[in-house]
Structures are given as structure tokens and as C-alpha cells.
């Protein structure tokens, strides 16, 4: 863990994004698990079509949906549903639930919404803003909110939409509300964007491009990059050529020396590849890199998440 980083829990809102397949959802779930273990009231918001976070946090097979649910590990989880969020927003704004329902149920209006751009992102962030503001018993309803945002391209659109709406709409409450959301996204005291990458060529390049565009376009705070699934060093430091030593043995129990050595060489090469591109990401973004280990059996249980959380929160008080 690089020194001098502000603790992750200092910001109220952490938005996780990155190229598809890098493990954003796993990282979001690991963050939530660790924050809950530290006694925080934490909420994970999943923005995809599927629900993967609740299962990772030990929730049963039923969906948590837009209403959300408390998972067995102590973190809350919900799935963003743009239509539900829009309906909630309009009810709050207009105070005429019957009218809102009638309009939203019109097939014509649905057809227009299906093709209209931007509103999904806007209501998604609007709902997050609303949750960030929510209070219960004299204190914030959630201490910490983790958003499992869409993959890179759509993730950028998500964060940029309040600004775009602000400039496309001339007046009215929506413009004002978009301004509040934009303020939250750009406030380094409240919001942190956490890019998740892999130590491979394409994800590394895409991450560098993402960081560049976020700095130039969105103005959201970034202070580290997560590089996920880094193959651990397979050999102890004092045995750097273990694969060659294996290959040189006359006989081995079980697999032949050649097969045994090939497996060792494969893991060593993956380790080097991951480390190489992890370093490239650090160099080209000028950001500290936090590496998470690849778990050979995959990430399936809260115990697996706890292993990743240890790396994510290394150097922070337990």
C-alpha cells in the first residue's frame, strides 16, 4: 500500500469503474464487506442488469432490487432501476403520484424514454445524491456509499451527464438538480473515483485513457488505481529459477519434470506480465497502484472478499 493516501473511508461516495471483465463488482463488494466489518453503515449500488453483489455478500438467491436489503455481512445492497428512480424523482418533485403513474405508464411515453439518452445516468446519480443526503435519527442514513458503475465508456457518460444536462437545458428544476449532482461528483472531499484495471495490455491502456479523460473532462477526484487479479509470485525469492531446476530433475513424483516445470514457468510468466503492466499503469497515470492478488480458486465467498479487502485497506486502521 502506497504511503500518504487518504483513507478510503474518508470520502462518503466511492465510484468503481473500469474496463469490462476487470472485476469492478468484486472490488465493490470487497469494499463494502470491509467497511461493514469496520462498523460503517455502508450501501453498495449495483448499476448493471444483473445482481452479483448480494450473492458475493452472502445474500440468499432472491433479488434485492431497487428497494435494497441488508446482507448477512452487514452491508446494504441495492440494484439501480432507472424507471423506478425516475418515478420516485417525479413523485417527489410534483407531489401528484397519480399523474406520474399515468404518464409513465403511457406506451408513447415509454417509447420516447426507451430511446432518449442521458436520463438513466442522470436519475442514477440523482438517486445516489439523494441517498448521500438522506438522514435517519439525526445522522446520515449511510456513512459510505459504493457505486458499482458501468464499464469505462458508459461509466464516463454516467459521471459526465450532470454537466451535459446543465448545458443542454436552459432553466427549470432539473437544471438546478443536475447542478447539485455535479457538485457532489466534483467535490474531492465527498467523492472518489476508483478505477479497476488488470495487469494486461488492453486493460492497462484503457485505464490510462480513462484516467486522462476523467482528469480533463469530468474533474472527479482520483488518488489510486486498483490492479486486480495479479498472479502472485509463484517462487520464493531465494529460488528464482525453480522452473529450470524442476526441468533438470531426472524424475518427479506424479507429473513429469517437463509438465511440472511448464506449470511453474506459466505462473512465473503471468506474474511478470501482470507486474509489468501494473507498473506501466502507475507510470502513465502518475497514480499509486494497489494490487489485488489473483485467487486460484476464484472469488466466490465473503472469505475470498476479505482477502481482497486486506489489500484494499492495507495500512488503514482496522
Amino acid at each position, binding site marked *: 500500500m502506497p504511503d500518504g493516501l487518504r483513507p478510503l473511508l474518508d470520502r462518503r461516495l466511492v465510484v468503481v469503474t473500469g*474496463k469490462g*471483465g476487470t472485476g469492478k*463488482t468484486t472490488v465493490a463488494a470487497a469494499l463494502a464487506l470491509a467497511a461493514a466489518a469496520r462498523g460503517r453503515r455502508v450501501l453498495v449500488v449495483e448499476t448493471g*442488469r*444483473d445482481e452479483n453483489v448480494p450473492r458475493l455478500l452472502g445474500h440468499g438467491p432472491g433479488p434485492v432490487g431497487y428497494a435494497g436489503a441488508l446482507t448477512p455481512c452487514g452491508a446494504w445492497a441495492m440494484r439501480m432501476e432507472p424507471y423506478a428512480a425516475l418515478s420516485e424523482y*417525479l413523485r417527489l*418533485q*410534483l407531489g401528484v403520484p397519480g399523474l406520474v403513474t*399515468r*404518464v409513465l405508464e*403511457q406506451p*408513447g*411515453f415509454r*417509447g*420516447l424514454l*426507451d*430511446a432518449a*439518452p442521458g436520463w438513466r445516468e442522470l436519475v442514477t446519480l440523482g438517486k445516489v445524491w439523494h441517498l448521500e443526503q438522506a438522514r435517519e435519527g439525526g445522522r446520515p442514513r449511510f456513512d459510505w456509499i459504493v457505486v458499482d458503475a*458501468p*464499464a469505462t*465508456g458508459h461509466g464516463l*457518460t454516467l459521471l459526465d451527464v450532470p454537466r*451535459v444536462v446543465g448545458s*443542454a*437545458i*436552459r*432553466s*427549470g*428544476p*432539473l*437544471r438546478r438538480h443536475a447542478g447539485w449532482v455535479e457538485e457532489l461528483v466534483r467535490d474531492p472531499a465527498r467523492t472518489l473515483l476508483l478505477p479497476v484495471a488488470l495487469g494486461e*495490455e*488492453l486493460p492497462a491502456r484503457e485505464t490510462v485513457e480513462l484516467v486522462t479523460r476523467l482528469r480533463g473532462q469530468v474533474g472527479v477526484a482520483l488518488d489510486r488505481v486498483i490492479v486486480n487479479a495479479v498472479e502472485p509470485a*509463484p*517462487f*520464493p525469492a531465494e*529460488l528464482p529459477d*525453480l522452473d529450470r*531446476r*524442476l526441468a*533438470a*530433475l*531426472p*524424475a*518427479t*513424483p*506424479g*507429473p513429469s519434470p517437463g*509438465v*511440472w516445470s511448464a*506449470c*511453474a514457468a*506459466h*505462473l512465473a*510468466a*503471468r506474474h511478470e*506480465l501482470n507486474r509489468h503492466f501494473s507498473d506501466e499503469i502507475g507510470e502513465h497515470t502518475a497514480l499509486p497502484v494497489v494490487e489485488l492478488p489473483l485467487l*486460484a*480458486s*476464484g472469488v466466490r465467498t465473503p472469505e475470498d472478499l476479505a482477502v481482497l479487502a486486506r489489500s484494499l485497506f492495507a495500512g488503514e486502521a482496522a
Partner: protein
Amino acid sequence: MSTRPASVATLLARRVIACVGAGGVGKTTLAAALGLGAARRGRRVLVLTIDPARRLADALGVGTLGPEPSPISRELLNRLGVPPAGELSAMMLDMKRTFDELVMRFAPDRAARERILANRIYQHVSDALAGSAEYSAMEKVFEMSARPEFDLVVLDTPPSAHALDFLEAPERLIGMLDSRLVQLLLHPASSVGRLGLRWFQRGAHQAFALIERITGFGFLEDISEFLLAFEGMSEGFRKRAQGVRALLFGPDTAFVLAATPSGESVSHARDLLARLEGHGANVVGVVANRVRSWPGATPPLPTAEEHGAWRNELARAFALANAGDFPSEAAAVAALRVLDGYAAAVARDRQATAPLMAEAERRGCFVRCIPELARDIHDLDGLADIERRLFDDEQEKT
């Protein structure tokens, strides 16, 4: 449902091969390897890609891919075993500029074109207009597949939050223009038949009033101006969309689905497989990418009881083969840890991909497992290796 699995060779008879799958599953490499395989079998192939690995593009001598096909040199093709009849070109799809091109092409006249491009809403939303980038990509495939210099177009599909956006995009755009609400916004007096007019208009006015209350005055005006300008394009647009659809879901197009061995990727792929077939797409193959596997047959592995004996045997072998100060005990422990870790990874990947492979076989698709390679595919040997594994008939029997 067919019982005999499709053969990889059926791909060669198509005009379009579309590689689909979630982001990060290796679609670009798959598209390049399928293109190479077809060229090696005498086809003139164009690979349309979104985001090529820079070093792969460099290796192919097409480092600066543009919006026009770049042919790969004859010299390289010879080295790759492509016969004289075969050709391979690559082209980059620029997802950002293509929508402007559509407007240029379909706007009825210069004034309409400029009205659209200058519209406040268009400037902000053309990138985000539902499926517009995906639609533009499909347009390009249609255009390229009609060119006489190519027998086959291999498409690396756009990254998309929902992998089907690109197939559904044309209908959604046209659906919006056709919707009664939009028609009423555009032509308040004439668009709706007399029957139910009053009822519909009341509903629509409620909707408009609601939008206005939230967005403030002027927004609807901008929107309707945008849609009105757009409407003039819709006839040409609709015709093209129908052509694109007929090509993609007709017999000339084959879909190959890629996935990686994680639970998330596999469930996404199974969902995509079912939905593609629901659309009438010909999904002919499923490729599991980066599957960790043994070099050769599965070797004998230690049971829990055998662990100690294996460690002692290894330590003895290390001590005999190395100098006296070599840490034989530590080497034996490390070697066993490597083997255990590798075996766990192989078992996990096999377990993760099994449901997808079974599903694909049940649907009569060909199935391929590409092992995880120690390095990224960034040179010709790596690409040729993947191509061999894809077109390997031995795998077809297993």
C-alpha cells in the same frame, strides 16, 4: 435443434462473422484469428475492429488503422501461410464520428443537415443517443460486406453495456420517431386519427406538461426541433436499417460467442446465447477464452496422504541434482505449492465453463477452449497459435 455440432468450416461460407460477448473476453483477438484462418483457406477477408491491441496491429504491419481497409502485406501473408488467393485487411471502426456521417448521408438537403448538426440537443446527445454508436457500426458492416473485394467481413462487435444494444438499435431509433407521442409533438394538428384523439391528446398534453415542469421552458422546443429535423431522414434510415437487419439475421451471417471462465462471464454468455437465438441469429460457435489448462493430458496429482511422501521424494531429487547448499526442502515445498495452485486454477476454470459448453453443444454449436497463454497475444506466432486451435479438427471430436 440440431444434434450434429456445427463445424468451424461452416464459417467459411458466410459473408459476415460477428464475434460477440461481454467486454474483456478477447473478442478482438478472436476476430483477428478467425480472419487469419479464413484467409489461410483462400478467402479475401476484412477484419473490422473497435480497439485492436496496439502491438498486434504493429505485428500485422497495420499500426495506424483508419476508417478505410488497410491490407496486410503479401510478405507477411506468405509468412502466415496465406495462399495467393487469400487476402487479409483490417479496419478500425471510429465510433465517435460515424453518427455525423449518418446525418450527412440521410439528411434530405443541406439546410436540414445543418439544422441537425447545429441543434443544441444533437450536439450534446448524438454520442449518447440510444444505440447510435452501435447502429453506426452495423451500418459500416453492411457497407463493407457489399464491397466486391471482400468475400468475408469479420466483426469485432462494439463494447456495449448490453451486448444486444447494437442489434436492437435500429428498431429503437425508428420506434421513437414513429411513436404517437413524438408524432403529436411534431404535428400537433394532424398526426392522430379521430378515434380516441381527445383521450390521447389529453394524455400527451399531461406528459408534455410534466416534462416542461421538470425541464423548464424551451427544452421541449429544442427537442421537437431536433426530432423534426431528424424526421426527414427517417425514410432512408428505415430502409438501411431493414437491410442491416436482413443481413445480420439472414443465412449469410454467423455469430461466434466468446466468454472467459468466470461465473459472471459465463452467465452473461448463456443469457446472450438465448437472446441471440430469440432474435433469430445463427450462433454457430462458442469459444471459451483464457481457460487455464494442463500442457497435455491431466497429470497424476497428489492426494492429501501422498503430499508428505511427494515432498520428501522431491527434496531428495533436488538435493541429488544440485550443489550442497541448495535449499532442497524449500524448493520441494514451493514446487508442490505451484502444482496445487495450478490444479486449483484448472479445476475452477473447468467448473466455471462447463455449463456454457454443455449449453452450446445442446444447441449444436461448435465449442473451443483456448488456453490461457503466458503472454498477451501481440505477435504473429501468438495469433497463428490461436488460429490453429480454433480450426483444429481434433478438438471437434472431443
